[in-house]
């Protein structure tokens, strides 16, 4: 029997916008296939050890909560998280989580807040807020045999940019994406996936959820090949409805 450990970073502080839906989706989609999941909250004062983690999830928090974790994160967990990223651990970081993995966050009055620096991306605060439903297209999901479209909801005032070693997660079809300017959404570095898309992201985008689970199982089990398919008709209906609404086009149904 396969097993995976899913760590949720600061679940009591970084838990905006239904972030835990991503953990629920990963867990359920494993359980429905007989894969045992251990979920582990990693909060203030807890040690994070990359060796005991297959998937790490980092969500976003309100400014007040993010200010509480600042010290614990940078002094207690920064090195371990960098190590996990470099070792190719599967990581999903949403919204504030993506910003935290980057190098710094520059507030709109020009103050730089140091971040983890595990991924070569950075964020500049702005006065406009990028809010709304979002559809973007991911090539790596097309390679998995899907239509590659991912739906979600974004709500951020930070605008994120990335260096040459990092690829965007997808191309914006409808919505703003990382900065509302370059047409890209999210970032991928090794097995670390970052995005502004909540909504919650994974329940409605099962192809992406399965992509992450597959990577994690391949990391841990050399004999693992592929996940058996599930009946995703409800998920497909929810995803399709939003694709139709935002683009006027039909998705391929998967």
């Amino acid at each position, binding site marked *: 029997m396969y097993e995976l450990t899913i760590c949720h970073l600061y679940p009591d502080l970084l838990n905006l*916008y239904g972030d835990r*839906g991503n953990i629920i989706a990963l867990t359920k989609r494993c359980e429905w296939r007989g894969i045992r999941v251990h979920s582990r909250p990693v909060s203030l004062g807890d040690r994070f050890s990359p060796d005991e983690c297959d998937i790490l999830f980092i969500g976003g928090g309100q*400014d007040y909560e993010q200010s*509480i974790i600042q010290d614990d994160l940078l002094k207690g967990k920064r090195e371990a998280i960098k190590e996990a990223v470099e070792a190719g651990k599967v990581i999903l970081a949403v919204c504030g989580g993506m910003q935290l993995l980057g190098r710094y966050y520059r507030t709109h009055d020009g103050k730089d807040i140091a971040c983890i620096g595990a991924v070569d991306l950075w964020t500049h605060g702005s006065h406009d807020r990028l809010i709304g439903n979002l559809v973007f297209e991911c090539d790596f999901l097309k390679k998995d045999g899907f239509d590659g479209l991912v739906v979600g909801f974004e709500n951020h005032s930070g605008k994120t940019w990335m260096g040459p070693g990092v690829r965007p997660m997808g191309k914006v079809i409808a919505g703003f994406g990382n900065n509302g300017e370059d047409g890209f959404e999210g970032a991928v570095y090794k097995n670390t996936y970052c995005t502004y898309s909540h909504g*919650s992201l994974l329940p409605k985008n099962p192809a992406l959820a399965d992509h992450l689970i597959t990577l994690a199982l391949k990391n841990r089990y050399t004999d693992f090949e592929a996940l058996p398919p599930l009946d995703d008709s409800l*998920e497909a209906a929810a995803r399709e409805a939003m694709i139709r609404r935002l683009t006027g086009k039909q998705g391929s149904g998967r």
Partner: protein
Amino acid sequence: MKQRFKLLRFWAAVITAKCAIVILRLFKSGGTSLPGKLALKLYPQILDHLAGLFRVTMITGTNGKTTTSRIVLSMMEQKGLKVITNKSGANLSSGITTTLISALTLGGRPRFSHALLETDEAAFRTLAPRLKPETVIVTNFFRDQLDRYGELHTTVNNVREGISRIPDAVLILNADDSLCASLGRNAPNKVIYFGMGEGIYPESGASINSDAAFCIQCKSRYEYSSVTFGHLGHFRCPSCGYERPHTHVECSGILFYDSLGSHVEISGPDLRISVKLALPGLYNIYNALAGASFGLALGLDEKAIAAALSGFECGFGRMETIAIQDKELKMILVKNPTGFNQVLRYLLTQEKPFVLAFAINDRLADGTDISWLWDVDFEVLALMAERVRNFYVSGIRAEDMAVRLKYAGISTDRIRMEKDYRQLITRALQETGAGETCCILPTYTAMLDIRRILKKQFGLKEFWK
């Protein structure tokens, strides 16, 4: 001269708004904001002018505003006061202006002595200094529609700023809510705190998604000796010592509760009563406590407070029941995770089988972001799945709700999608057995749509009355 011009403008604005109210009613529209908007356009200072004509009480906070208003109203009625209220949830400046204008004679004289105004928490900052209330009740603060209100602390600080400009107002605050209680700290105002007694709340709902686990003063993690739900409870900060204040009105015992209501003891230095609340849902005890605190501030005696508490109706759409032949249809508004969780807990008290329908919209008034559905503990539905005949999903985001139920462990063959509200009501009622209940849980705009259909089909009374 200037004074006379002002009066003229006031009168012109009042007449215009009054005409608009009459016309809107002729067309059977419950429009509550347009007349006020017109009046504000014609005379931007009209609210300050209007406020001077009434003795004002304001109620704000995330959850329970409407129900608390109803209870406070029945307290005022015990005292024999003549009160105008904004009953239908018209709680922004335009709706409040409409309400106050409708309380004037054609000559611009007030027909009521008191105004009881439910106020949107985001609008409170600007409205409080203009309305100059004698009393302010703040029910609680929970995360709500982040796309509209922004961060929770911003909302709390907005209300704090509004309060700082009305130092003479009496504040009635929830002691169990560390965010709400903090409004009374260092404020020159007279404060009445209400709360739940230690350890008497039967279901502890401590949640990892707590909205305020960390001290608002020093950011240390609070310690709790007792939790009711969400972040409400007997909190104490081990580092700076900020703690739940002593209460003046406290629920000291829950003798009984079921799906129809509860029997509670309420006590404090100045009162001790035992009263049956005809309001289902334990969260409504908080609203009753807020109401009792107001009664105390008003100078009512124990008997009058108890009488007011035991005899009032539910607020508009928050929970209303209509009998349809031998079945009943219940509609309960849902708008944020904490409120939704309390509704689900309430459903646990249903003993008979029932049909459960969700109608989720994502229009502006509902919040365009529906991510919050993932913060609701739908997993508790598994505890009552046997009693639920079927699960219906409806509204613009019916598909999302279906996915949420699936991941909460509800078998997909029990989830029915029906986007047409008329069909939804027909199908859901068909599956409801004799003597059973069909529960519809809509978001705000879905509630308005469903209500319109219920009004036509079953003669539900119109909501502005």
